[in-house]
């Protein structure tokens, strides 16, 4: 890995770290060198310690999070133990995961200027620097905009500019894709790539959405598990090594497809990125697999449980949020609602639950008009789970939290015990019945919120904003398989999501909303192989579709469907 002429800017040597609040070290004996001008991707499952590595780089450890450090970490040749967070912030610029939360200033210009203000830069010079850096990330014309007027992608650009003003050597991105829709994620990766190339920065990206990061070149992938580095190789080698799945990281879908097709992926195939993939070497196998006969899974017709007819909603006269939206959802379906941020997806969920009232059109539950029904009445049939479990949990104990809805409805205590027990069992929480909620992981908390809805015996469950946001592949699979089993037991599930893998693998039906209008309503496979809809709704056509095209398969949609069916049948049985 040693490259001539380039010095190491990050050197971990036998580095260990243990949070004071934890019994075990989070990082064990890390040895890692990152060279000047390199672009390194750090991947690993939740709790693997990958974020802790990031915190060590930018100084949040030990400045904000205290713990015991062993070994050495040098940045640009200087021992970090001897530096403070301010010194480090001049060398390592960090773009945090939540672009919204880290927006400190009230306007774009002010936010970008934040570091300069703290450095006591004189106002005239400050304005010049801000303008120059804002132009670098294409935000130069929006200096006066407030965060409310910006999209998620734009906010991230501002955060990016905010660290570029310091002319740092190392740029650290902590899960840059977590809150972005697929198309915006793509532009974010493009932008990182541009700055990396043009300004010769060293870039470290921490992210588990591997395929999306590999949309552009990456020098090395470092795989972290259980606080240790388990692999450190080029993307091509990593795909060939076939270890990602084992550590709870999802490999790119096209690589999975190659494996299903019986291809033994080797480094020489250059499978790290789809554009570098050696197509002739794999073409035959893929074509052969595609042409194998496949039995079709038949979908039976079921009664419609929820229907919207020409639904309209607006907050003010000028801002129309939903316009003439109609759809029909059958009983027992699992449906994804997708579209850009601010397209009206969440509003649609709110209208369905009665949190806000529609201005026109009708909503029918099992054929019956829901007009005039209160939130409480609707909640007998329709349950709504918010994105962040911390926004819902209000009791310290798991049992009480799950029982809350029933208690509020005056259900007798014996019946409550029975129903709660049942719901906790479905959610795999039965052993934790008497536990405090604070002892649970994020994913488990999410289940508690779902359990607290299930006790009400809803017919429809609406999950807002990515039920799996911020979850690694392992936890993602766990939550999704759980939802699937719930769905199979008869609950109709509506999910608002950005996650195309989720859409593709779990929901047979997808509704696409863009600018308040419904622009697509079909199977997820059809939507994700339709370039026009994908572009309009800020989605991205799946790499399976691209692989099909590259290998000369005409029925690309059929290929994607084949992949899904194959996976359902062989992998998850």
């Amino acid at each position, binding site marked *: 890995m040693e490259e001539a002429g380039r010095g190491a800017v990050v050197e971990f040597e036998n580095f260990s770290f243990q949070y004071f609040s934890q019994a075990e070290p989070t990082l064990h004996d890390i040895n890692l060198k990152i060279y000047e001008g390199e672009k390194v991707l750090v991947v690993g499952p939740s709790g693997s310690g990958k974020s802790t590595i990031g915190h060590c780089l*930018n100084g949040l450890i030990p400045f904000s999070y205290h713990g015991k450090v062993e070994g050495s970490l040098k940045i640009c040749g200087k021992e970090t133990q001897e530096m403070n*967070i301010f010194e480090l912030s001049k060398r390592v610029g960090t773009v945090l995961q939540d672009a919204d939360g880290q927006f400190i200033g*009230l306007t774009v210009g002010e936010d970008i200027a934040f570091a300069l203000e703290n450095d006591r830069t004189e*106002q005239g010079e400050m304005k010049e620097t801000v303008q120059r850096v804002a132009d670098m990330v294409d935000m130069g014309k929006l200096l*006066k905009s407030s965060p409310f007027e910006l999209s998620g992608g734009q906010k991230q650009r501002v955060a990016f500019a905010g660290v570029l003003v310091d002319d740092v050597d190392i740029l650290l991105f902590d899960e840059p894709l977590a809150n972005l829709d697929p198309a915006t994620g793509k532009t974010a990766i493009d932008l990182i790539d541009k700055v990396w190339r043009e300004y010769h920065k060293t870039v470290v990206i921490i992210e588990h959405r591997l395929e999306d990061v590999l949309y552009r070149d990456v020098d090395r992938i470092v795989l972290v598990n259980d606080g240790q580095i388990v692999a450190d190789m080029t993307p091509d080698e990593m795909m060939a090594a076939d270890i990602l799945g084992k550590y709870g990281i999802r490999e790119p879908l096209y690589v999975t497809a190659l494996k299903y097709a019986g291809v033994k992926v080797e480094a020489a195939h250059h499978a790290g990125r789809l554009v570098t993939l050696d197509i002739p070497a794999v073409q035959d196998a893929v074509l052969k697999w595609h042409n194998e006969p496949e039995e079709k899974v038949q979908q039976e017709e079921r009664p419609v449980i929820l229907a919207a007819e020409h639904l309209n909603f607006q907050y003010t006269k000028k801002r129309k949020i939903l316009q003439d939206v109609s759809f029909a959802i059958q009983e027992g379906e699992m449906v994804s609602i997708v579209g850009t941020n601010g397209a009206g997806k969440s509003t649609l969920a709110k209208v369905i639950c009665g949190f806000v009232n529609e201005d026109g059109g009708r909503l029918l539950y099992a054929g019956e008009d829901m007009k005039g029904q209160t939130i409480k009445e*609707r909640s007998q049939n329709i349950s*709504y789970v918010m994105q962040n479990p911390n926004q*819902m949990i209000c009791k310290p104990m798991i049992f009480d939290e799950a029982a*809350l809805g029933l208690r*509020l409805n005056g259900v007798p205590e014996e019946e409550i015990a029975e129903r709660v027990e049942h719901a906790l069992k479905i959610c795999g929480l039965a052993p934790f019945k008497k536990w405090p909620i604070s002892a649970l992981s994020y994913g488990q908390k999410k289940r508690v919120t779902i359990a607290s809805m299930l006790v009400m015996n809803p017919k429809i469950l609406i999950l807002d904003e990515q039920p799996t946001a911020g979850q690694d592949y392992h936890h993602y699979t766990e939550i999704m398989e759980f939802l699937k089993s719930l769905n199979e037991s008869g609950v109709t599930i509506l999910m608002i999501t950005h996650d195309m893998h989720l859409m593709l693998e779990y929901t047979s039906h997808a509704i696409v909303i863009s600018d308040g209008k419904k622009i697509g309503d079909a199977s997820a496979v059809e939507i994700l192989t339709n370039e026009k809809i994908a572009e309009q709704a800020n989605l991205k056509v799946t790499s399976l579709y691209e692989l099909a095209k590259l290998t000369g398969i005409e029925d690309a949609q059929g290929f994607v469907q084949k992949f899904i069916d194959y996976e359902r049948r062989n992998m998850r049985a």
Partner: protein
Amino acid sequence: MKAKLFDYIDRDNFIFNLSGLTKLLCFIFMTFAVMFSYDIRYILFVMVLSAVIFKASGLEFKQIKIMAVYVVIFLLLNFILTFIFAPTYGTEIYGTRHEIFRITDFYVVTQEQLLYQITKSIKYASVVPLGMIFLLTTNPSEFAASLNRVGISYKAAYALSLTLRYFPDMIRNYQDIAVAQQSRGLDLSRKEKMGVRVKNTMNICIPLIFSTLDRIELISNAMDLRGFGKHKKRTWYVARPLKKGDWGAIVFGAVILAGSLCLSVFVNGSRFWNPFV
């Protein structure tokens, strides 16, 4: 969308373009003027003035409607309670007694008491629009910058401005949580007894507090990472140098305060205007 309260919306007019420092000083001057004087004529004058300024700043009544409702309720309560606990305070102050009618021997409505209570209510009523104008026309960051310029530590000033800034967010968050909890059967409507409603509100506050704490950790990390608190002083991107208009406004505010003081010292001879002698 109901979270209009305390939302800062930038506009381009004379009041908005004044520096935050000017507005802070004017606010302090005029509030002090009103608070010092018990001369209803002068207070009414300032109140009309603040209404004019409100109009000139292009703010709309609906932006402060909720606030106005609370203020009216508070004033009414204050009015009633003052009478219940001190029905003769007015006669003590003014030294005369002009009865209007008797309720009981203790509760006598006098002209003095009425004047005193109305004066007091108007006092509060005229300060509130001033405060609202100040809050709604001052960019929160500039507000911090101006606090810093009158000598308050920039860390404290920034903390205050961040609070103001995230207040609308918190209200939005509260509303989101409230509807989600209502869908679990939490009743916040009038149908429920007061005690239960208070308890139910608690159920919303707990998740609100936890999600707010998450947020605070994030923002303080983000600020640390960008060097907040590195030096004893910092500069401000949004600070505006004082212009002619600013000086004019400051002098105007000072004159109002001086007017109030002079009126008390030279004309009325005390803080109270006494029409009864």
